[in-house]
């Protein structure tokens, strides 16, 4: 009895410690985002801002584009925020729509042959830099460089394998007898999809969407290679602080980090119900 209590105690202590390890960077980012420049780098560290301020947020959220003033770079986040939201959402939507259709037709009709899902995976077997350079060459001649369409296309291509593999797990969970039953009862193929398959895989679709959204939301390398000034996503903007030569703007950078985290967290809360079901893979098994 006593022993079991001890085991539970140790287990919870380890879990709590690990939670702290993963959350401390997030905390430090939030903490820094509310500090004045004098407090960014101090020893001993300030665990709370002594004079909390919103000036970092005000600076990055002011409309307008990034400017240089008196040799100092002022980064603006509204445009990158929009660019990221637009490219990540559009690419995730298209990838989930295409990928789940592919997964369905492979699971039910064997479209593309037995090895199709594996061959689709090969695009993820190379480091992204390997595909980034050929894409760059193509994009120059196709005039897709530094455009929304270009970035969205490459994100769709790289997300499709994930979508196909995740959706395969959900679709294979739907017994094919359910579809046969609906067809015999008078449903068309389309009606079978909308009335039977879709309602039973909606949690999977939502979970997959979020997964792909986060993937593209935080993607840096391809965005850095394939965009320039017209399109500039959040990860690129965050990265620019590293190279500013007049000192490090930790405050605004932390503010942007906090802002960049917000949509993902908000989305997660909105679809929490589906995530619990979706990530448990196997909602239909009795």
């Amino acid at each position, binding site marked *: 009895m006593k022993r079991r209590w001890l085991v539970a105690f140790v287990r919870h202590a380890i879990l709590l410690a690990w939670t702290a390890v993963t959350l401390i960077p997030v905390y430090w980012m939030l903490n820094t985002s509310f500090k004045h420049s004098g407090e960014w780098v101090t020893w001993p560290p300030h665990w709370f801002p002594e004079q909390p301020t919103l000036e970092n947020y005000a600076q990055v959220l002011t409309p307008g584009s990034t400017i240089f003033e008196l040799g100092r770079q002022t980064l603006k986040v509204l445009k990158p925020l929009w660019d990221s939201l637009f490219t990540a959402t559009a690419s995730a939507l298209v990838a989930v729509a295409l990928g789940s259709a592919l997964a369905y037709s492979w699971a039910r009709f064997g479209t593309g042959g037995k090895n199709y899902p594996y061959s689709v995976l090969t695009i993820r077997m190379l480091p992204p830099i390997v595909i980034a350079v050929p894409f760059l060459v193509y994009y120059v001649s196709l005039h897709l460089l530094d455009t929304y369409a270009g970035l969205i296309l490459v994100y769709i291509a790289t997300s499709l394998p994930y979508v196909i593999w995740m959706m395969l797990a959900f679709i294979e969970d739907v*017994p094919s*007898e*359910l579809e*046969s*039953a*609906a*067809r*015999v*009862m*008078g*449903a*068309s193929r389309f*009606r079978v999809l909308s*009335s*039977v398959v879709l*309602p*039973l895989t909606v949690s999977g679709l939502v979970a997959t969407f979020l997964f792909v959204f986060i993937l593209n939301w935080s993607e840096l390398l391809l965005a850095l290679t394939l965009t320039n000034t017209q399109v500039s996503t959040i990860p690129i903007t965050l990265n620019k602080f590293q190279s500013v030569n007049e000192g490090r703007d930790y405050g605004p950078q932390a503010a942007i980090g906090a802002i960049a985290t917000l949509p993902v967290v908000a989305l997660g809360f909105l679809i929490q119900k589906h995530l619990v079901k979706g990530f448990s893979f196997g909602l*239909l098994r*009795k």
Partner: protein
Amino acid sequence: MAGIRLAGLTKAFGASRAVDGVSLDIPDGEFVVLVGPSGCGKTTTLNMIAGLEAPTAGDVYIGGERVTDREPRDRQLGMVFQSLALFPHMSVFDNIAFPLRIRKTPPAEVRARVEAVAETVRVAPLLGKRPATLSGGEAQRVALARTIVMRPRAFLMDEPLSSLDARLRVEMRTELKRLHATLRATFLYVTHDQAEAMTMADRIVVMQYGVVQQVGPPLAIYADPVNHFVAGFFGVPPMNFVAGAFAADAGRLAFRAAGVTIVLDRPAEAVTAHDAVLGVRPEHVRLRDGTGGWTATVSLLEPLGDETIVFLDYGGATSIVATVDPDEKIAVGDRRRFMFDQDKLLFFDGTTGERILR
């Protein structure tokens, strides 16, 4: 409502033929059971009738119309699946209403028809529930209701009782038979359970290796099987088989096997096949006192209450199984004499398994 006719229906998967030239005429209102071991092609046959699988060759006719190339939804058949295939995301009401809503039936009529059918199969109190919360028997009735409500031209059932426990299965058997009597619709029922086939069918279709072996009323198939397979498939405990050979015995035909010789009332020329298998049902094996017959040791007893199953070791490769009256005084180790009812003996060709000497 309509009858179903199959003409040379064939389904090949690569080189193997799951269904091989099945022709069958089911008149309107008949209860036909397709029976056979798993993998014999019975479910594939049913799926081709429903339109869920396309035949390699042959045709399906429903009510005289050729429907071979029609989509499942254009065949107006009702089908109950082995898994029942209730939609887990819909209430019982929505499940039963599904086929009506697809046909754009007005909501008032949907409600009326669903409630009427739910009353018939006694699921009215369950309409608000989800399928996952139903018991096996309840789910079974809901699946039936969903099929009945669409007023199909014929009912197809693919082992619908296999998920139920033994007792409920026997109850549902009776219920299905009663339902058939009420609806007077064509029922085509697939099972691997010979007892289900015997108890429910107007006519039984026995399949093996994708080929129809025999078609006929249950008792005719039981008493007069066309081959070794059909003879062994029906009956519990199964028919006894004794492998031996035919020989002439003073101008008459005799069957000889280890420990058993039977002289038949037939001329020696009646059979050309040399190797043969004798088949005799356990209820046609008689224990007797005194002389005649053969001697055996009782090796095992299985009392069932209404009868007792006796295993007799007579010197052959396997025991002869007999069913006797439960009051029979008998014990393991007894030496007893036994005989066969001479007029009930069946003989099968030792090579092809075909019935001979009919």
